[in-house]
């Protein structure tokens, strides 16, 4: 028995899995089969849908048979310890992993019933439909205006200057940044504060009208106030966009998402309503992670 019980003195026999005071360890008998995901992976109206996805870096398997639906206009958060594959999975959803030579993806991921890994799906087009916001705010070293206008420009979304201006304004407005930057659109985007930069990056993603927005730990470089504003923004964006967010902050997952998926060592251990995951997770690994008894 690799687990201890703080009540062992009182009664060493009647403890159950996920016991307070017991830390779940790798390979303990509590670990369920790595291939079975607890909870319902499917939703009635999926926007994106992954089935039996395996990801390899050379010979090393980073994602192990993950199936998961991302529902229309929902925020789904992916949590788990470092190296659990949540970011890798997120990056499969817009084929960002294509840029890594040694990365190989198996299985099927569909966007509106189109397989995004099929030959007919172009990665550039896919990334226009599935936008991405990164961990560190990474505005282009250009003006605020150019940051937003870049995407629409290369995709030819605006036919005239005035149309482009409109896209820039609405994108910034949707990101809640318009009032803050409307007087300095020609100033460099990198001159904004960290939180503003991240909202600028969100506005940049919105500008190409994506169907899904992926966020890879979008607040990990921000202070709590800026984090709160970004979280508020994510909640507002849910009306029009489907959002998948990877986060290290369980509180953030609890605050912004409707569904939560817990990843562990490349496996999708549990997925379910955020309410359930954070009050009463079913899988002992999830419980251990959420209550801070993991390591």
């Amino acid at each position, binding site marked *: 028995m690799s687990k201890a019980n703080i009540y062992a003195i*009182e009664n060493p026999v009647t403890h159950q899995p996920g016991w307070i005071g017991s830390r779940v360890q790798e390979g303990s008998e509590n670990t369920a089969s790595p291939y079975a995901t607890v909870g319902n992976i499917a939703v009635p109206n999926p926007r994106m849908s992954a089935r039996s996805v395996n990801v390899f870096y050379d010979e090393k398997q980073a994602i192990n048979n993950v199936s998961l639906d991302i529902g229309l206009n929902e925020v789904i958060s992916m949590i788990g310890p470092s190296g659990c594959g949540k970011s890798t999975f997120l990056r499969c959803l817009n084929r960002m992993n294509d840029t890594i030579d040694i990365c190989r993806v198996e299985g099927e991921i569909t966007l509106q019933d189109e397989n995004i890994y099929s030959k007919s799906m172009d990665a550039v087009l896919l990334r226009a439909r599935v936008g991405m916001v990164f961990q560190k705010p990474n505005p282009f070293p250009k003006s605020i205006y150019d940051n937003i206008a870049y995407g629409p420009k290369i995709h030819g979304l605006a036919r005239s200057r005035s149309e482009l201006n409109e896209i820039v304004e609405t994108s910034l407005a949707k990101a809640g940044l318009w009032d803050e930057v409307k007087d300095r659109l020609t100033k460099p985007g990198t001159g904004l504060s960290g939180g503003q930069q991240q909202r600028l990056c969100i506005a940049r993603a919105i500008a190409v009208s994506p169907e899904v927005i992926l966020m890879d730990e979008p607040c990990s470089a921000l202070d709590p106030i800026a984090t709160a504003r970004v979280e508020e923004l994510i909640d507002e964006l849910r009306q029009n966009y489907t959002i998948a967010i990877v986060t290290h902050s369980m509180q953030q997952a609890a605050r912004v998402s409707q569904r939560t998926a817990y990843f562990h060592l490349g496996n999708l251990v549990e997925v379910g309503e955020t309410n359930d995951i*954070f009050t*009463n997770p079913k899988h002992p690994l999830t419980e251990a992670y959420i209550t801070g008894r993991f390591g």
Partner: protein
Amino acid sequence: MNSKSTARSNSEGHIFHRFDEELQSLIKLVGEMGELATEQVREAGKAIKKGSLERARSVVNRENRIDQLDIAIDEEIHRVLALRAPMAKDLRILLTVNRIGSFLERIGDQANGIAELALFLFKEDSSDPDKRLLSGIPRMAKYVIAMVEMSIQSFKRMDIELALEVIEMDRDLNEQFDTSIRSLTTYVLEDPRRIGDAVQVVLGLRSLDRIGGHAKSISRQVIFMVKGVNVRHQSVEILAAEIRAGSLG
């Protein structure tokens, strides 16, 4: 320095070692409070059984110790919730501790009521009441004490089967209560002069019934804590079936 080296050697438990200690201290407090409440009920029962004013007074005097424990538990929970933001089972443990605290406080109140009943019945300037009139109270008290003790045990061990037993015991307790009332009724019909004492005794029986009810609530709370399913208003039969089939939660 000593605690540091322990923390290092002990790879189990919460990543914040302090958090486990806080939970442990809370659980210890609940255990202490449970013992105290049980003791109060037991002493109050004995005071009635033996007609001891001294015991009754000591119960009344100890009442504020339960209240102090209740406040201590409340404050600790408040602090832990604010500082640790617990999740899942940790959160349920804290919520349960919070509720158990208030149930035990109420059990203490009821014990206090029984002790005051003893003080009323065995007033120095009046004759002692008939033993037959009081016989229901020690019998029920014994049963209720067992329920309270078991419910606290079920909490400490997180043993839902023990908790289920307590919930099922509550039905027997209700039957005992009914039996006691019936025998009291018979007694009062025989001797209507004792009707005043009889009313007091009914109140005492009622208090014991309530204590049993609190023990049952504690047990249901324990089931919530372990399983994360709220069974506060579920029928005992269904609950028992689910727990025994292992399909709860």
